[in-house]
């Protein structure tokens, strides 16, 4: 039982890191540049599709990943140039409308290009086994790699945002673009670069999860809401918050759906507990978010401005 709990905690951690990987780019663009980008999810999806294609062409997942990064960066640049740059000083709702449209366009385009059937890419040999943990329980190596990638991304982002001048300028530009440019910063270029970088992060996340998840046209959308939940729980604009939020969601979701019914059984009869558990399980994440926001209206690490 404790073994299982430990393992589930590890699973929760891993799922949380996975969510963070996806939410990282979103925090960057939304939390810090103050731009609501619903298309983040589809760029993540493109990353997954591209790695499938590139891995197929090169015969190696690693090479595929290396090609996917610049490709999604490029896609980010193009989208920024064509659409996003015209929307930075618009209301959030305008951004929602435009990026909602973009989601439709990209999803449909992906379906036209790659077809509707889910695709797959096999993971690199070296990372495909599993390591023994405790008792009969084992843990897949690739998931350890995801945890590592997520932690590195978190650390890197946190350093960039809080410790570099680029990070400062970004945060400054989010609240007052005009002032920042009047002080001599080329805000447009800054935003372009960061936006493309955010797209690359999304693409990276997509490429990283492609070996363990189905690559299909629904993958971006299902993850987008979760990613938003994560950054809202953590507090918008805080990398630390996004990280904490992701882990919290990962653990609560994973551990809660396994141990929740067990706990419920302690307080009600088994069939009612099973029913209640089934009803509550999908709500868990939302209940968590509602609770946190009810108590801390600006998320865990958010600041009220």
């Amino acid at each position, binding site marked *: 039982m404790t073994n299982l709990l430990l393992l589930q905690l590890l699973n929760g951690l891993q799922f949380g890191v996975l969510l963070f990987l996806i939410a990282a780019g979103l925090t960057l663009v939304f939390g810090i540049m103050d731009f609501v980008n619903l298309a983040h999810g589809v760029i993540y999806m493109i990353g997954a599709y591209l790695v499938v294609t590139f891995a197929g062409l090169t015969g190696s997942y690693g090479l595929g990943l290396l090609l996917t990064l610049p490709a999604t960066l490029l896609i980010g640049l193009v989208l920024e140039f064509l659409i996003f740059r015209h929307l930075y000083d618009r209301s959030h709702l305008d951004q929602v409308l435009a990026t909602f449209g973009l989601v439709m366009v990209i999803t449909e385009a992906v379906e036209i290009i790659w077809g509707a059937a889910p695709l797959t890419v096999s993971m690199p040999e070296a990372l495909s086994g599993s390591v023994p943990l405790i008792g009969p329980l084992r843990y897949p190596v690739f998931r350890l790699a995801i945890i590592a990638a997520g932690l590195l991304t978190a650390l890197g982002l946190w350093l960039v945002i809080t410790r570099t*001048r680029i990070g*400062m*300028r970004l*945060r*400054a530009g*989010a*609240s*007052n673009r*005009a*002032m*920042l*440019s*009047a*002080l*001599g*910063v*080329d*805000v*447009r270029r800054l935003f372009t670069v960061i936006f493309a970088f955010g797209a690359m992060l999304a693409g990276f996340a997509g490429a990283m999860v492609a070996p363990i998840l189905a690559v299909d046209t629904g993958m971006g959308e299902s993850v987008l809401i979760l990613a938003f939940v994560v950054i809202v729980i953590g507090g918008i*604009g805080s990398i630390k918050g996004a990280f904490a939020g992701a882990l919290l969601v990962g653990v609560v979701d994973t551990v809660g759906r396994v141990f929740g019914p067990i706990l419920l059984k302690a307080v009600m009869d088994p069939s009612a507990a099973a029913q209640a558990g089934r009803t509550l399980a999908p709500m868990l994440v939302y209940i968590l978010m509602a609770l946190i926001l009810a108590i801390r209206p600006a998320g865990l690490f958010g*600041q009220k*401005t």
Partner: protein
Amino acid sequence: MLRVEGLQAGFGESLVLHGIDLHVDPGEVVTLLGRNGMGKTTTISTIFGLLPARAGRVSVGGTDLTRAAPHRRAQAGLGLVPEGRQIFPRLDVRENLVATARPGAWTLDRVLALFPRLGERAGHMGHQLSGGEQQMLAIGRALMTNPRLVVLDEATEGLAPLIRDEIWACLAALKAEGEAILIVDKNVDALTRLADRHVVIEKGRVVWTGSNAEMAASDAVKDRYLHV
């Protein structure tokens, strides 16, 4: 240094500036005077490219920048202390100062020496500062871009008398170092001590311009346009 010719600008349908001409020579201190709502801030916004010019020309050091992006103008040597402070609320005090700094005589240490109060608040977020502290921060931030011409729009608003005196002293020192200054302020007395020339605008037009001496001599000007 800065030359503005026939500048027109406005918001939406309404034209606020109807052709402003002014210039600031290197090392010169020029004031922009006028009552509330006459277009001083609008003039400054247009000089910085934050508002598009509908007609006229803005040039810095001989280069025409009328159509240039704001950051190009700042890089050409303009530094802004905007009306209403506009510090970056989500950056702390130190970050506010260094985020846009450019190398030169003004360093973080020098600004903190000028405003010790900021040093005491160095780790605080911009939005946590008191009104006056924000004002100091806005001035310090502009200085740290090491401009050749500082433009101050009501930079002493909300400052305690002691600090205000320090600012005047500091501006005098800047002037002595050969820095050019364009300034909007309501303390006409202090301005007359500092400035070389004055430009008075009314309803978006320059209605009077003259040297400090001419201004001092002409009570009529003060009376008519400034009610001092």
